[in-house]
């Protein structure tokens, strides 16, 4: 049995480097951490005295080359929407149930075939493919159903996803609104996009308490009413494809914002044709 421990940072580079090291020494143990401080505390806690090889804590590797070396080139895209290998690993790492050490072992078990990441042929392959899809679906749903408010000149929104996608969503929102600072609150962290307008780095994160003065009441405003008018105007009740409507506005996403909750309610219950005018004559 090897006495080696491979310590790696839980990012794409760290995972790829750890997989590379593990292929050289398959019996080594794996240990991951989000930074050097966490690594030190983990080592101190375990009290291990084995030889330690730390990888990925300082950016040094070209991930694309490394991914090709480990998994070869994909013979063809199985689905046009699937991300490349680096994108795949990045999404899987964001999953709430992802264990980076198991992911490294799974990558090693692919025997140099990147296609096994996507095919779902093996149970582990299916599990990680589903992780990737879960995270990407959560991100897409946030992009679809989150409704930011303009608070004190900052386009701000609170997100509550089990996966770590606040930064992804913030980058997307900042790209969509390049003329405004944006803030995405994810638990204790506030991700800031277009931070140059606030005298900060363009993309950064701060403690969410720092943005405590922002009001996230989400009270309906004129736009909410205007949206309801628009939404209601688009429907022909007799032609409603309710199944497809439910698919496009899933129940699981209706909690994301009040507007999407109202839209989902209308999908389920229909749009009331009864208005105040019916009573006032």
């Amino acid at each position, binding site marked *: 049995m090897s006495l080696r421990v491979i310590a790696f940072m839980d990012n794409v580079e760290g995972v790829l480097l750890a997989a590379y090291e593990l292929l050289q020494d398959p019996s080594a143990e794996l240990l991951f951490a989000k930074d050097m401080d966490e690594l030190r505390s983990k080592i101190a806690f375990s009290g291990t005295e084995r030889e330690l090889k730390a990888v990925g804590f300082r950016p040094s590797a070209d991930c694309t080359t490394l991914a090709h070396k480990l998994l070869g080139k994909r013979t063809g895209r199985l689905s046009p929407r699937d991300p490349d290998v680096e994108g795949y690993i990045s999404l899987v790492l964001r999953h709430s149930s992802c264990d980076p050490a198991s992911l490294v072992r799974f990558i090693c078990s692919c025997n140099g075939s990147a296609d096994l990441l996507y095919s779902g042929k093996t149970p582990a*392959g299916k599990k990680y493919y589903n992780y990737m899809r879960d995270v990407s679906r959560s991100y897409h749903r946030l992009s679809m159903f989150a409704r930011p408010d303009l608070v004190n000149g900052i386009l701000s929104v609170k997100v509550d996803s089990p996966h770590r996608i606040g930064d992804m969503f913030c980058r997307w929102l900042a790209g*969509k609104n390049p003329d405004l600072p944006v803030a995405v609150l994810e638990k204790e962290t506030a991700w800031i996009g277009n931070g140059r307008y606030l005298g900060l780095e363009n993309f950064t994160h701060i403690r969410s308490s720092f943005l405590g003065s922002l009001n996230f009441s989400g009270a309906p405003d004129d736009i909410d009413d205007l949206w309801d*008018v628009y939404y209601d105007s688009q429907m022909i009740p007799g032609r*409603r494809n309710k199944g497809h409507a439910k698919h496009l506005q899933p129940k699981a996403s209706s909690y994301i914002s009040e507007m999407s909750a109202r839209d989902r309610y209308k999908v389920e219950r229909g749009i009331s044709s009864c208005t105040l005018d019916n009573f006032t004559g």
Partner: protein
Amino acid sequence: MTNQHVAGEHHFTLTERMRILSEGTKYDSCNQSAVCHAFGPDGRCIQLYKTLLTNACAGECTYCPNRCGRHSTRASLTPEEIVRITWSFYRRNAVEGLFLSSGIIGDAERTAEKQLEVARLLRSQGFTGYIHMRVMPGTPLYLLEEIADYANKFGVNAETTSSVNYSEICPNFDYTSDVLQRLQWTRDLIKRKRREVGYGGRIVGANDTQFVVGALNEPDREIIGTVDRFMVEYELRRPYFMSFDPVPSTPLENQLPSPRWREIRLYQTSYLLKDYGLKAFDFDAVYDDNGFLVDTDPKILLAMSHPERFPVNVNSASREELLLVPGIGPVSANRIIQSRPISSEKELMRMGIVVSRARPYIEINGRRQTNLSSFMGAGA
């Protein structure tokens, strides 16, 4: 243009006009599932603010609620108002773009100029969202060229399959010059734009068009044949089908509405043309005696009408053969090919194949679902 400029138009508030003009677009909402949506390059569904510039129209299309001479509430929005509403929805992330159509304001040229004004104004204010413009038949080339600079997607609706049919439902325009010529121009402009901006830049949507289904009695065989022809000649990627609904006070008010399932079956057939490499003649066995689709999945009907093609061996069949199997789509066919050898149905299930649908048509390592005749000893 203000709302006072259209004859017979009363004063309405902005919200009222917005409602009237959005309602004017609901009849050509594909699938009637949510508000108008499109799909981004990442496959994400994006919602659009869909509106008409005005529902006052100089055209006399026989199926259209906005046809001139029909007594209805007329309203319009100024380009500034459309831009303001679009921004409001866009900032709240309720939409990611604008879908702009219009009644014909005088002629196609003037209408396109007004539509262009909206797009120009939005882009000049830094709008990076998606803009889809439905242009009128007969829009001049120089305006289409400018629209291509601002819009992500633009196109003209064919509505039907031939000049004769078109003259019956859209008497003000000529099918060959006002529609087919424009489809050819949009194809060329899209190609040029894609070359210029590449796929990394802004999205340049593929050529698309829309058919009104059921306003005339053209059979589905004819519609599918036209779609197939357009895919070859105009690089049409996405046909849209709008079910006809009779509108009161129009020449077609007493006609029966087209059933919703017909639209769905037409969409399914168009996907088989678009993504599965099939051609219009492949569906000859699927239509009924009058050339109409029936209310069953056309892919299943196609498989049932060619029993000699099955079962296919998942470990040796070509991609084209796999694609003919119900329950196997382009992605799952790729997965099967990349993951061979396949040893069990469980593996297929994990790959996303709908095994319950595919089972009668496949065999794995010589094993296949037993059919009744072989069970009775009558041979396979």
